[in-house]
């Protein structure tokens, strides 16, 4: 079954009365995320503990890397977090990144608003302080780590060796040590770009990870138009979910892909994904006057001045509100989803 397009959606009046009655709210439909599921070892990392401003108790399973990867300035980052916080969107990254090594009190307060997923490179030293404030830990197993302390021109262009883990049998112990260092309370995950999906995912599940983030699309300059799809989204999700089911583990699958609307996101959730990245959606939702300035998400900063702090990010709130409404509608209609597809 292919991912639904926007034309597949039907108005509520076209649904049968029985279908409407069988509908359940989103919170109880999407897996059991909203019911405070035991995530990994017990801490919700990508979940959302707050009521949204929409007056309902929907808990959208979202996460974003934008605050970490887009190189946002401290002020903008704080503002983005403030905009995201009512929706309970978790974010991936290091509190010490983006140059704000000594955040002031209010920035620190902003960091506490959302559950943060601390990401860790394979060849990065294990920093206990990094784990203490994170809700979850994500080990990055994809991409080539480049040497950070290159002292020659040649070395700067030489990819760093993934030297630390020489045998993959050591991965299980690596998960174990992360678990001990984080006090055994935080879920440990991995960021992977799928190759042989079933085998890879199965192996990672057997290594003891609590959640896996599948990087299906790579976006250059954070632009959804110039994204590179590494694998088929549907096949990746299908095989990953099958691997989880076959293993009998409670591992959660998170997807980072070029998903631009609620319908596609809902379809992913329906296929068994636990949470989805909204990076592409946010970038795509930028108003044209901002988007036209530069290609990167960081272009939001170009017109930024402290006096007009609230203006550039107002669209984030409206875009997220719209997305949540869209997801809610999808969940409401999902009771008669197959009938809708047949028509």
């Amino acid at each position, binding site marked *: 079954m292919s991912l639904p397009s926007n034309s597949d959606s039907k108005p509520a009046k076209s649904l049968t009365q029985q279908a409407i009655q069988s509908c359940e709210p989103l919170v109880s439909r999407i897996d059991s995320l909203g019911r405070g599921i035991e995530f990994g070892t017990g801490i919700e990392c990508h979940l959302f503990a707050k009521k949204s401003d929409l007056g309902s108790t929907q808990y959208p399973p979202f996460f974003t890397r934008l605050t970490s990867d887009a190189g946002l300035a401290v002020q903008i980052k704080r503002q983005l977090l403030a905009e995201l916080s009512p929706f309970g969107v978790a974010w991936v990254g290091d509190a010490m990144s983006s140059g704000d090594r000594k955040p002031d009190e209010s920035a620190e307060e902003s960091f506490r608003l959302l559950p943060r997923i601390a990401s860790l490179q394979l060849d990065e030293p294990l920093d206990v302080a990094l784990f203490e404030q994170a809700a979850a830990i994500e080990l990055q197993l994809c991409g080539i780590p480049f040497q950070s302390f290159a002292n020659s021109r040649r070395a700067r262009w030489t990819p760093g060796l993934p030297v630390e883990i020489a045998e993959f049998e050591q991965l299980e112990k690596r998960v174990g040590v992360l678990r001990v*260092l984080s006090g055994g309370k935080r879920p440990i995950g991995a960021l992977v770009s799928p190759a042989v999906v079933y085998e890879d995912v199965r192996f990672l599940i057997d290594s003891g990870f609590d959640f896996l983030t599948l990087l299906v699309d790579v976006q250059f300059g954070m632009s959804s138009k110039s994204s590179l799809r590494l694998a088929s989204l549907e096949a990746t999700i299908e095989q990953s979910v099958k691997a989880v089911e076959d293993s009998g583990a409670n591992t959660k699958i998170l997807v980072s892909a070029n998903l631009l609307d609620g319908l596609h996101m809902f379809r992913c959730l329906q296929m068994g994904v636990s949470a989805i990245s909204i990076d592409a959606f946010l970038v795509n939702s930028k108003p044209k006057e901002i988007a036209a300035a530069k290609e990167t998400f960081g272009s939001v900063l170009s017109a930024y001045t402290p006096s007009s702090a609230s203006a550039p990010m107002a669209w984030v709130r409206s875009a997220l509100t719209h997305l949540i409404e869209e997801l809610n509608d999808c969940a409401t209609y999902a009771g008669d989803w197959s009938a809708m597809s047949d028509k």
Partner: protein
Amino acid sequence: MARNSEWIRQNEPTRLTSRVNAFIAARCSPLVVALIMENHPEITHHFDLETTIPLEMLAALRQSQGVVSLVNIVNANGQDFIGCGFREVTETIVKGSIGDFGLCSFGDGECKISGSVGDFFGHSISSGVLVVRGNAKHSLGALGAGGLISVYGDAGNRAGVGLQGADIVVRGSVGSLAGLGMQSGTLIVGGSAGKDLGKGLSGGTIYIRGEAESISPDIEEQRLREPDRLKIGMLMLKSNISLTGKEFRVFRSTHIET
């Protein structure tokens, strides 16, 4: 005298602590003593690993209100993850051998292990001193950013892998790929080394006393200078190893632009 004090430190650490307290008590007024002890209460932990798991040890340390002056660990029996996340513990004594990822992310203190250690011992060490009286397995001191690891026996493959500023002293020999991907720091080998010494090394220094089976083209031998001798001597002194710096050869990266 030095040997005597060392013997006391190894065998009677609790008595030493009490002697320090006695010294404070003799020199200071009772009020000052009371203030010192109130603000800096000394906490001692004793863990028997037949009844405790490493996770519980770390939890107990984190709950401690005050300076943890001594941690005694007995019946290690080669368990993994022992001493992971130990920080600001003045002295840690481990009786027996420990398994993989021992003393991972260690900092600010001193730890002595009477037996041998497994893979990834001292991973991500940031400061402090780790002393191993036995041998170490593979990937000793991986990604260490500071501090000193001293091994009295031999070490396995990839000793000092990805080192980022820590110092490692191995009195015996090391296996192949020693100093793999080193970025900074020091690796001192008192014996010989296996194949591909210094592969992928981009910074830091390797000192070796014996012969290496093969040397990677990423490093080149350089003349032993006085600062090198001083550095070796200082690290040997810290490690309580009686070797001088003059028998060693020095290897550094071939890619350093001068």
